[in-house]
């Protein structure tokens, strides 16, 4: 049969949700277990973060985590928004706002990851 | 406020017959379909076993054999020209359904699958033949769905949940109907050139029935009230295998796949009544046999039922005794899984309503009221007839269970109803459109809704009167006892009296709901009126026939009497008087003989 069903944003996103989800299992679980259980918030301070962010491996790890988890979560949020908002124009406006929010927050997170911690500036 | 609509063809009923008519009528004329139920809720959807056609996909079969079986099944009361026409059309319409998309079950080589059914035989070997084309055990469902789908495709105009209450006639010509829109309670007048009635049957007259709540004989009652006759009402089929107490049907297909009837002594009693085809004798024969077994104390535990057994070991045991083989000559063997795949819905019904698994336990069954052979008299073109001479009622057509062509005569063979629907639905649709093209709109009377209003206002005007259900229950019990499988003169006479009494009391019936929106209370009451009319006409028609033929079995006249009674009954109703006339049966090739299976 000649005609092929072309992927669109929703179908691509559907697959992305599933693949990123699977990827997030090691990424997110390990991250949470490491920081909250093995290290624990009481052992975390800016110096600890600084050490981690000086390590290229950890930076990459965190970068992937940020990228996938936040995109995954924001698309999930968009689904929930679609459930509750039905007017196409409102849906579009909110989608754009969410896209901007996603970009800004990701950019902030990515900048911090790339630049590393600056414990020396703590007053 | 009454709205008036105009369509060249109005089809009343959206079951198999109505939809088939709609498909064909809409090709030639502006057509609208009115139905009191959403089309897909129609009773055609309940049909299980299959549609008969001599395709010969698995073993040799011939149209002539199908015709003869139908004539014989009808106990020679069927009109043979109509039967020949239907059976000859059968392969074509089945292929047509397939082309429309109907998902028939398939044979190994990809053709439409066929199974055995009661009364359908190879005329040479006299053995049951594979003739029923099926889609698992939901053939009717698939026919209804497929036809509805094609109506959507062809943009047929539907008025869903419009309950037709009256047929409009002007000077003997049908020119429309009056319907109530359920959602608003408003009356609508539909002005038409052709009206096709396809409203189905009236099995709700009887206590134990396989029929839907909606099977209230509206079509026959409406035409009776308009002075038109009803034909052969005394012939009403009791299907042998209804689920105990509920009446839900267990298709004959179960016996087609090898299931057997067993009595309280563990005997396969059909061997005694129909030595050749046994459990696959025609329905009237099997139903009577079950009754006789029960009467002789051979019911299960002496009770009023017997078993239908389709456990694989039992099926295989009797298949071996019968020397039954597959088309390729190897012995017939089934497994539980195969049975499940062939009759999944039956298994589901038993699990749901009886809490038993028919693959592991036998099913308790009882004969159940099932099918109206009689109805609005028509010719093979679906044109309604007004008298014994075959005078056509201009503009009025009927098809499906509501009509009496008559192809089923005194007893219908399984699978022939679905066939009847498509063959004559198609014909009626075509003819209705053709007629509409050549005719003008006959003007409507001044107050076309008067008659309907009267009927409704009478019910709505009362309060604290008789209850609909009380009258209904009395009717059903009486009809079951005295105009059921076996009948006697006294019984029927008392039934006639009872129906007259109930019709009198019906004048005093009242309802709780006096609103407009979805007043199902009111419509139930109106439907009871139809049932009572049809019940009375049925009892009178039956009482007047002193012979046993097909489904009409008299204890006081156990023999068929071809010399005097090889004729159709026509009944007219005037108040509570029923007038009967008779018309000859058309006989072409097959001379009446004794019927043995």
């Amino acid at each position, binding site marked *: 049969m000649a005609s092929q069903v072309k992927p669109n944003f929703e179908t691509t996103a559907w697959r992305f949700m599933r693949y990123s989800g699977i990827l997030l299992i090691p990424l997110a679980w390990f991250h949470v277990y490491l920081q909250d259980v093995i290290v624990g918030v009481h052992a975390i301070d800016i110096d600890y973060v600084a050490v981690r962010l000086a390590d290229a491996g950890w930076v990459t790890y965190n970068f992937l985590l940020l990228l996938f988890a936040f995109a995954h*979560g*924001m698309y*999930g*949020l968009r689904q929930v928004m679609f459930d*509750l908002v039905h007017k196409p124009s409102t849906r579009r406006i909110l989608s754009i706002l969410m896209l901007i929010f996603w970009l800004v927050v990701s950019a902030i997170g990515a900048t911090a990851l790339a630049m590393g911690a600056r*414990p020396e500036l703590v007053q | 406020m009454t709205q008036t609509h105009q369509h060249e063809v109005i089809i009343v009923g959206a079951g198999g017959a109505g939809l088939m008519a709609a498909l064909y009528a809409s090709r030639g004329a502006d057509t609208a379909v009115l139905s009191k139920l959403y089309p897909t809720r129609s009773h055609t959807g309940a049909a299980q076993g299959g549609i008969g056609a001599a395709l010969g996909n698995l073993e040799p079969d011939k149209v002539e054999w199908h015709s003869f079986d139908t004539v014989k099944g009808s106990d020679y009361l069927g009109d043979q020209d109509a039967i020949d026409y239907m059976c000859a059309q059968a392969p074509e319409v089945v292929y047509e359904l397939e082309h429309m998309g109907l998902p028939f079950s398939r044979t190994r080589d990809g053709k439409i699958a066929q199974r055995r059914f009661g009364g359908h035989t190879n005329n040479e070997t006299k053995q049951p033949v594979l003739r029923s084309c099926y889609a698992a055990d939901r053939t009717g469902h698939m026919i209804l769905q497929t036809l509805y789908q094609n109506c959507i495709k062809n943009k047929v105009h539907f008025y869903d949940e419009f309950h037709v209450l009256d047929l409009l006639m002007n000077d003997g010509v049908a020119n429309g109907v009056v319907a109530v829109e359920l959602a608003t309670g408003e009356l609508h007048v539909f002005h038409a050139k052709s009206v096709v009635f396809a409203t189905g049957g009236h099995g709700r007259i009887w206590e134990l029935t396989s029929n839907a709540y909606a099977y209230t004989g509206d079509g026959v009652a409406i035409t009776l009230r308009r002075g038109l006759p009803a034909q052969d009402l005394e012939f009403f089929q009791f299907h042998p295998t209804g689920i105990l107490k509920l009446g839900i049907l267990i298709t004959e297909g179960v016996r087609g796949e090898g299931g057997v009837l067993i009595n309280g002594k563990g005997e396969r009693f059909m061997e005694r009544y129909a030595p050749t085809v046994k459990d696959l004798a025609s329905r009237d024969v099997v139903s009577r046999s079950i009754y006789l077994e029960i009467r002789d104390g051979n019911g299960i535990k002496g009770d009023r039922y017997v078993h239908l057994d389709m456990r694989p070991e039992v099926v295989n045991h009797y298949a071996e005794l019968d020397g039954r083989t597959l088309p390729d000559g190897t012995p017939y063997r089934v497994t539980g899984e195969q049975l499940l795949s062939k009759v999944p819905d039956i298994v589901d019904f038993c699990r749901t309503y009886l809490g038993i698994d028919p693959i592991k336990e036998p099913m308790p069954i009882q004969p159940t009221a099932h099918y109206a052979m009689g109805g609005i008299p028509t010719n093979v073109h679906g044109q309604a007839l007004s008298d014994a001479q075959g005078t056509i009622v201009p503009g009025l057509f009927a098809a499906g269970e509501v009509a009496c062509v008559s192809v089923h005569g005194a007893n219908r063979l399984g699978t022939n109803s679905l066939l009847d629907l498509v063959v004559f639905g198609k014909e009626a649709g075509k003819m209705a459109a053709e007629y509409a093209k050549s005719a003008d709109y006959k003007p409507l009377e001044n107050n076309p809704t008067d008659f309907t209003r009267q009927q409704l206002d009478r019910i709505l005007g009362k309060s604290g009167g008789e209850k609909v259900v009380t009258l209904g229950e009395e009717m059903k019990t009486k009809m079951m006892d005295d105009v059921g499988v076996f009948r006697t003169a006294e019984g029927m006479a008392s039934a006639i009296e009872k129906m007259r009494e109930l019709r009198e009391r019906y004048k005093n019936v009242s309802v709780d709901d006096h609103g407009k929106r979805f007043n199902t209370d009111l419509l139930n009451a109106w439907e009871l009126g139809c049932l009572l009319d049809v019940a009375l006409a049925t009892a009178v028609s039956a009482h007047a026939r002193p012979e046993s033929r097909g489904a009409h079995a008299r204890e006081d006249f156990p023999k068929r009497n071809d010399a005097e009674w090889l004729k159709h009954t026509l009944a007219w109703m005037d108040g509570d008087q029923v007038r009967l006339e008779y018309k000859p049966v058309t006989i072409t090739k097959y001379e009446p003989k004794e019927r043995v299976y």
Partner: protein
Amino acid sequence: MAAPSTPLKNTVKGYATYMGREGHYAFLLHRLTGLGVLLFLTIHILDTATVYFYPSLYQHAIELYRATPFMLGEIGLLFAVIYHGVNGLRIAVTDMWLPKRWAIEKQRQAVRITLVVAILLWAPGALVMFYNMLLHNFHVDLLAFLPFGK
């Protein structure tokens, strides 16, 4: 005229009162945990970013995380991440590779297993976090109560 209702009302009513089976509750929990994790993640990205943008604030943030209500919340967060992950895995795998397993018995079972697996994966971590919380915030050392403890 129809009975007054809106999609939002139907949603609330349905979520709260529909007597669905396992799948229904799995859906609700998946959604709830997904949104919960997202909320936390957003805050977490922003507060961690202070290590570069506004390092002085970071210590405040961390103090906050150490407060008892927050620590309890984090135990919940751990469950949320784990449950959402296990359940998401069930959905992803069934959807893409084993659609035949979208069958009633299998799914009821699978949902129950998901919950058990999630609890098993969560419990050790939760215990450790709880232990740490008591130790740091209440100076109670649970290990000391054990017969073979310190």
